[in-house]
């Protein structure tokens, strides 16, 4: 290989099929496409929900009907036909299993392809899994050791049945049903998701981990996650995503709500690797996510995300720093290649005194992709001595991609100190040649340079996730520089 021509590049991309692009044919219980009040009621009924939950969903639906899909993001795509989506799909093999032996072997096969075979996961000390395939949780492990500490970690459907008082009290308090178009839609039709409650003063002894996965063709997925860390508790939560390859665009509109009470700390890490569409920009997941956390006094919420997948990403994990001395952090790596578009960032809303926030965003664009950082730092009138530091770095590969930064800063208190740093750089031929000369080929050189660029954020991920994330970065960018 003397040089890397356009043809080589094209060839490379052709052979680089989506790693997790398979489709498991599991007998499913799927609703007819379409959305109206009856469908919302049917979802609620299917999940055997109490009356208040059904009403809650219906109110969300009525609000959604009056809303319009937002267009301010720096992304262009053909808007989904919301009447052409099926709003419920659950594996038919019920009820839940006590052991893996009882699980549908085909399902286990799916897990294996994902590289998260339950056996392996069970052995992986310290990681409890709550696996969501399509919409219904099918396996939960490590439940016992969590039970001993009084930690609740289950599907949100189960929580609605078993812990209605907690769900009723907190759901929709951080992300109101009318917050935005997608959040309203999610509130009306959410299928499943995770629920977690950490009692006062408890330090969760293991990383809590959930794998979400879209499986059935033509079904959207609407997860709902509610995580409550009671006073002085601590939890680290991992969320990893893969989806099989489909030709039509798949809609994904999740809502995640975090509640960190006085002195509590929540660390929320995401690796998102959904199908980005093919090299021509056909197919791929639409990822419209609302993630937000609220910090009470002395609490801390830390978001870390590695976003490599999806055709279109619209996502702003945010922190409301309500309590005095509370801390919000956002660490992000967003990679776009081929025709991917990402508009992602965060909102740090400083309401309490001495609140602090840190934003580190690393955007990597390759191919014909567009990568935007959009962030809001808002300092309220009572937020004395609030402090923010933001750093937004963009790395460009090739000449056809774009990197954009949209920082918004609103300060209503004179004592605030806000810093914003931004850089844009391009992987240079000199850097590549330097690596080549030391015996490192171009692919590896890019991986090295990108990992170096992303290091500040990768370092924030829990160990087992960091390794996976590094691999993902390499896979996502293979063949992206000529």
């Amino acid at each position, binding site marked *: 290989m003397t040089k890397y021509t356009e043809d080589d590049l094209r060839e490379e991309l052709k052979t680089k099929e989506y790693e997790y692009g398979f489709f498991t044919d599991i007998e499913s219980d799927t609703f007819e496409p379409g959305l109206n009040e009856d469908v919302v009621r049917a979802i609620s009924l299917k999940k055997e929900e109490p009356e208040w939950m059904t009403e809650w969903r219906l109110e969300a639906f009525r609000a959604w009907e009056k809303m319009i899909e937002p267009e301010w993001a720096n992304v262009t795509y053909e808007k989904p036909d919301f009447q052409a989506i099926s709003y419920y799909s659950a594996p038919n093999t019920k009820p839940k299993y006590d052991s893996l032996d009882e699980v549908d072997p085909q399902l286990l096969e799916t897990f294996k392809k994902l590289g998260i075979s339950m056996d392996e996961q069970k052995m992986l000390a310290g990681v409890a899994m709550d696996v969501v395939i399509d919409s219904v949780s099918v396996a939960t492990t490590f439940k016992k050791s969590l039970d001993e500490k009084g930690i609740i970690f289950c599907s949100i459907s189960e929580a609605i049945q078993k812990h209605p008082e907690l769900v009723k009290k907190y759901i929709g308090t951080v992300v109101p049903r009318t917050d935005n178009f997608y959040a309203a839609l999610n509130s009306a039709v959410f299928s499943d998701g995770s629920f977690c409650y950490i009692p006062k003063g408890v330090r969760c002894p293991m990383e809590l981990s959930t794998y979400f996965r879209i499986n059935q063709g033509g079904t959207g997925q609407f997860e709902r996650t509610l995580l409550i860390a009671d006073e002085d508790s601590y939890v680290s939560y991992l969320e990893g995503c893969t989806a099989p390859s489909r030709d039509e665009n798949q809609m994904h509109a999740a809502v995640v709500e975090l509640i960190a009470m006085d002195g509590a700390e929540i660390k929320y890490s995401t690796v998102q690797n959904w199908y980005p569409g093919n090299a021509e920009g056909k197919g791929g997941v639409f990822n419209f996510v609302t993630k937000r956390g609220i910090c009470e006094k002395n609490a801390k919420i830390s978001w870390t995300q590695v976003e490599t997948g999806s055709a279109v990403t619209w996502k702003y994990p945010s922190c409301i720093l309500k309590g005095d001395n509370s801390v919000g952090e956002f660490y992000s790596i967003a990679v776009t290649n081929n025709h991917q578009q990402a508009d992602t960032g965060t909102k740090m809303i400083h309401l309490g005194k001495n609140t602090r926030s840190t934003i580190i965003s690393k955007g990597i664009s390759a191919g014909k992709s567009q990568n935007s950082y959009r962030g809001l730092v808002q300092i309220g009138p009572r937020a004395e001595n609030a402090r923010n530091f933001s750093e937004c770095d963009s790395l460009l590969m090739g000449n056809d991609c774009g990197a954009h930064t949209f920082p918004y800063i609103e300060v209503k208190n004179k004592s605030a100190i806000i810093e914003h740093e931004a850089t844009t750089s391009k992987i240079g031929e000199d850097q590549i040649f330097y*690596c080549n*000369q030391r015996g490192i080929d171009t692919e590896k050189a890019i991986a090295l*340079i990108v990992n170096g660029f*992303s290091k500040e954020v990768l370092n924030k991920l829990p160990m087992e996730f960091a390794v996976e994330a590094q691999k993902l970065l390499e896979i996502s960018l293979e063949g992206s520089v000529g």
Partner: protein
Amino acid sequence: MLKIIDLHASVEDKAILKGINLEINAGEVHAIMGPNGSGKSTLASVIAGKEDYEVTQGDILFEEESINELAPEERAHKGVFLSFQYPTEIPGVSVTNFMKTAINETRKARGLGDMPANEMLKMIREKSEMLEIDRKFLSRSLNEGFSGGEKKRNEIFQLAMLEPKLAILDETDSGLDIDALRIVASGVNKLRSDENAVIIITHYQRLLDHIVPDFVHVMFEGRIVKSGGKELAHELEEKGYDWIKDEVNA
């Protein structure tokens, strides 16, 4: 070890090298001198395989095989090392991590497994001591915020770690103070053996006082116009390049 035959190379259709002939045997040190713009650094880049340069005529043989068509990393795997005049920065990648990757990629190309961690550590310890490099330096991002002298010393550290057969030092002396020059030179001298060869590209005599060359070549307008022993370097230092130019033009 290295045989360059009638080498012509150009960049963007501009001819830079116009017929270089050079033969270097194992155990030898060759110095290439010459005025600015004579093509010295281009020659170094062409040997290393930089794609910006097009070889229009001639051949480069390394251990009797043509390397003209090989990618830069393949030449590196064969044992060609270039100490850069202007080493590039790679933010977030530590010197240690970079070295580890370079060594293991080279081993992989040679059909070997990764170097065991304890062996690598031992090697890093030895080589960094030899070049009087502070251990903290090795955890810093490659060349980022390095002083001119630190960059050059880091290049020689990499040379020591990779143990190439042919080392090309492209103006390694520029930006070095006298102490650093002495350390770098003594490092290169310790690495010299009957098995390897060194090409030193420089403007000045001073590095050659420390690393004594077997041969000195003078380049001018893309050709080697004069070759001699180490005394030629002294002559150049005294008289400058003008007399060479006059000789060529005469």
